[in-house]
C-alpha cells in the first residue's frame, strides 16, 4: 500500500519534468549556451581584419584590463545610467499617478479603456521609427525649430543634436513616452489586485487620500514596483535603439549619448568577439549588482 503511494508521486513528478523540458531546452539553446560562450570568448583575442580572422589566441584577462582601464567604458556607463534614470523617474511618477487615478473607484474616470489604449500606443511604434521621427521633428530646419522661431523664442534654429542636454533630453523623453504606458498597465494590475476592503477600512479609520496612498497602496504594491524597477533597469542598461538611430550610431555630441550597447556595436564592425565578450560580461555583472541593490532596498522593510 505504502509502496504504491510513492510510485504515484513519482509518476506525477515525471510529468512535471516533461512539461518543463521545452522551457529548459529553449533556455539552454538561446540563453545559457550564448552566455557561457560569451564568457569563454572574452578570454581570447579574436577578430576579423578584412576577410582574414585574427586569433583566437588565449590572452587571459587582457581584454578586461584593456576595457576597464580605458576611460571610455566608464563614460558610456555613466551616459547609459543618466539617460535611464532621466527617463525612468518621470515614467514611474506619471505611471503611479495614472494607475492610482484609474484604480480609484471614487474618481469614476470615464473612457478608461480609451485612455489606457492611448497611453500604451507609443510602445507599439518601433523605437527606430520613433527616433527617426524625433530626428526629423528636431532637425535644424524641422517643424519644432520653425515653431520656436515663429514664436520668437529663438532668432535662429537651435541645434538640438549639437547640445548635450538637448540630445540626452530627447532620448529620455522618447524612452519615457514609449514606456510609461506599459508601466501604468503593470502598476494598475498591481493596484487592482489590492483588496478594496483595506481601502474602506482605512477610510473608516479616517485616513486621508495621501495617507491611504503611502501607507496602504505603496507597501502592498512593492512586489510589482520591484519588478517594474528591475525590468526597467535591465532594459535601461541595454539602451540601444533610440540613441543609435537618433545619432546615427555616433553618440554625438562628444560621445555624450554613447551607451554601452552602442559601444558593443562598434566592436562588432570587425567582429571583435573578444572585446565584445568582455564588454557583455562587464554589463552582465553591472546589471546583476544593480538589480541586487534595487531588490535589497525595496524589500528591506518587509523583513
Amino acid at each position, binding site marked *: 500500500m505504502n509502496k504504491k503511494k510513492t510510485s504515484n508521486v513519482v509518476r506525477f513528478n515525471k510529468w512535471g519534468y516533461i512539461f518543463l523540458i521545452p522551457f529548459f531546452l529553449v533556455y539552454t539553446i538561446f540563453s545559457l549556451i550564448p552566455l557561457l560562450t560569451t564568457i569563454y570568448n572574452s578570454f581570447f583575442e579574436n577578430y576579423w581584419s578584412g*576577410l*582574414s580572422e585574427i586569433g583566437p589566441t588565449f590572452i587571459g584577462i587582457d581584454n578586461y584590463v584593456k576595457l576597464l582601464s580605458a576611460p571610455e567604458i566608464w563614460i558610456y556607463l555613466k551616459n547609459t545610467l543618466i539617460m535611464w534614470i532621466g527617463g525612468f523617474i518621470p515614467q514611474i511618477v506619471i505611471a503611479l499617478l495614472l494607475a492610482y487615478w484609474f484604480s480609484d473607484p471614487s474618481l469614476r474616470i470615464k473612457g478608461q479603456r480609451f485612455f489606457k489604449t492611448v497611453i500604451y500606443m507609443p510602445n507599439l511604434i518601433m523605437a527606430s521609427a520613433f527616433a527617426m521621427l524625433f530626428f526629423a521633428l528636431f*532637425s535644424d530646419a524641422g517643424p519644432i525649430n520653425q515653431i520656436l522661431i515663429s514664436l520668437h523664442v529663438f532668432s535662429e534654429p537651435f541645434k538640438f543634436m549639437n547640445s548635450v542636454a538637448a540630445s540626452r533630453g530627447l532620448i529620455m523623453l522618447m524612452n519615457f513616452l514609449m514606456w510609461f504606458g506599459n508601466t501604468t498597465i503593470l502598476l494598475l494590475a498591481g493596484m487592482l489586485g489590492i483588496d478594496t476592503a483595506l481601502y474602506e477600512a482605512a477610510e473608516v479609520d479616517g485616513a486621508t487620500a495621501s495617507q491611504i496612498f503611502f501607507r496602504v497602496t505603496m507597501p502592498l504594491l512593492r512586489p510589482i514596483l520591484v519588478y517594474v524597477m528591475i525590468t526597467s533597469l535591465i532594459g535601461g542598461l541595454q539602451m540601444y535603439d533610440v540613441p543609435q538611430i537618433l545619432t546615427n550610431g555616433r553618440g554625438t555630441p562628444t560621445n555624450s549619448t554613447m551607451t554601452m550597447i552602442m559601444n558593443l556595436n562598434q566592436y562588432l564592425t570587425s567582429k*571583435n568577439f573578444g*572585446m565584445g565578450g568582455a564588454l557583455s560580461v562587464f554589463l552582465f555583472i553591472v546589471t546583476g549588482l544593480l538589480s541586487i541593490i534595487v531588490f535589497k532596498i525595496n524589500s528591506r522593510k518587509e523583513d
Partner: protein
Amino acid sequence: MNKKLVCVALTATMAATLLSACGSSAKSSSNGKVLNISAWNEEFKSRLEDHYPGYEVVDGTTGKIGDVTVNWLITPNEENAYQNRLDELLLAQEKAKADEKVDLFLVEADYAVKYTDTDYTLSIKDLGITDDDLKDQYTYTQDVVTDSKGVIKGTSWQGCPGVMIYNRDIAAEVFGTEDPDAVQAYFSDWDKFTESAGTLKDAGYHVISSCADTFRVYQNNASLPWVDGNKIQIDDNLIKWVEDSKALYEAGYCDTFGQWTEDWNKGFYPDGKVFAYFGPAWLIDFCMAADVEGSVANAGRWGAIEGPQGFYWGGTWICAAAGTDNADLVADIMKKMTCDPEIMKEIVLQDNDFVNNRPVMEALAADTSYSNAVLGGQNALAMFCAGADNIDMANLTAYDQGLLGDFQTAMGEYINGNYATIDEALAAFYTAAETRYPDLTH
C-alpha cells in the same frame, strides 16, 4: 571563335592552377545555371537590364540571360549590412552549392582593397579580359581595384570625377554673371573661394550647404594613405580641411549638416539659399531632385565649374568572385558593360552617367548636340574628362571607409565647437577608429 575557346580554356586552367596553388579549392567553371550578383542598390541591375544584350527581366530580383538565371542579392549599405552579408557569402563560397556561389559582386572605392587584396577575387586578365580591352578606361579606375601585387581584380563602367555645381540664379544676382568661365574665376583656388564666400554671405547665401561638402575634395588631394603598416596617419590636407571648415563655419559661410539629411538637401530648392554643392555626374542627375517641381535642378538652373581643386566621389566596381561557376558569362558582362564603346555610349546618352571610356567621353564632350538639361543645357563633359584624367587613386587602404567616417564625425564636433581643440577631436577619432579596427594603432 576557335582562338577564343582555346584562350578561355587556357585561362580557366591557369586560374584553376593558380587558385589551387593558393591552397583554395575554389575552381572557376563555366556551365553554371544561376548567376548570383551581390549588390547594395539597383543601379547596376538597371544598367544590365537596359544595356546588356539578351538580358530579360523575370521579376524584381531575378532575370535571365540565355538559359542562365540571374539572381540579384541586394542588401542595403546601412550599418555595414552589405559587406557583412558579402563576407559571409564569400567565406562560405567553397562549401556552397554551385548554384548558390556568388559569381559577381560590386564594391566601392572606400573598401575595394578589403576584397581585391585577397584570393576571393579573380584577376580579370585570367577571365580573358585583355590589356587591349582595357586600354580606353581611365587609369584611376584600374588603380582602385589593383591589388598589392599589381594584379587588376575588377573593373568599372563609370568614372566619378567631381565638379562644383553652382546655382545660376544666385551667381547672376551676386556676381553679375552665370557664365561658367566667369564664375570659375571667383572660385579658382581656396583663397578666392573663401573671399567669394564672404560676398555670398553678405547677399544672404551660404557658399556650400555643409562643410562636409568639401571633405572629398581635400581628401582626394591628400598625399598619404590613411594607414601605413598598421599605424593610422593623417595627411596635412585633412587638417587643412578641418581648419578651413572651422573658419568657414565660424564666419557664417556654411553650416555643419550631415550629408543626405533634410537640412543638407534644402539647397536643392531656391529657398535653401545655398550657392553650390560639390559632386560628380551621379549627384547632379540622381540626387538633386531633378524630377521635383520647383527644385533648382527641375528648372535647369544649376551650372558646373571645376572649382578650386579636382576630386572624385563614389563609383562602383564589379569583381568576379573566386569559385564562380559562370566564368565565361562573368567575363562577358565585364567586357560588354565596361569595355564596349557602343554600350557605354548608350549609357551616357540614356542615363547621363559618366562612363569609363576615354574616347567615348571625349567625343561626346566635343559634341555640341549633347547637353545636360539639369545644368541649363551646359555640356560639362569636357570638365569631367579633364577631372577624370587627373584623379590619383594610389592611396587606398582597406580601412578607408571606417576611418573616413570616424574622422568626419570627430572633426565635425570640433567644427561645431563641441571639442575645444583639434587634439581633443583627434583623440576621439583614434578611440573610435581603434575600436572599429583593433589591428590599428596611432
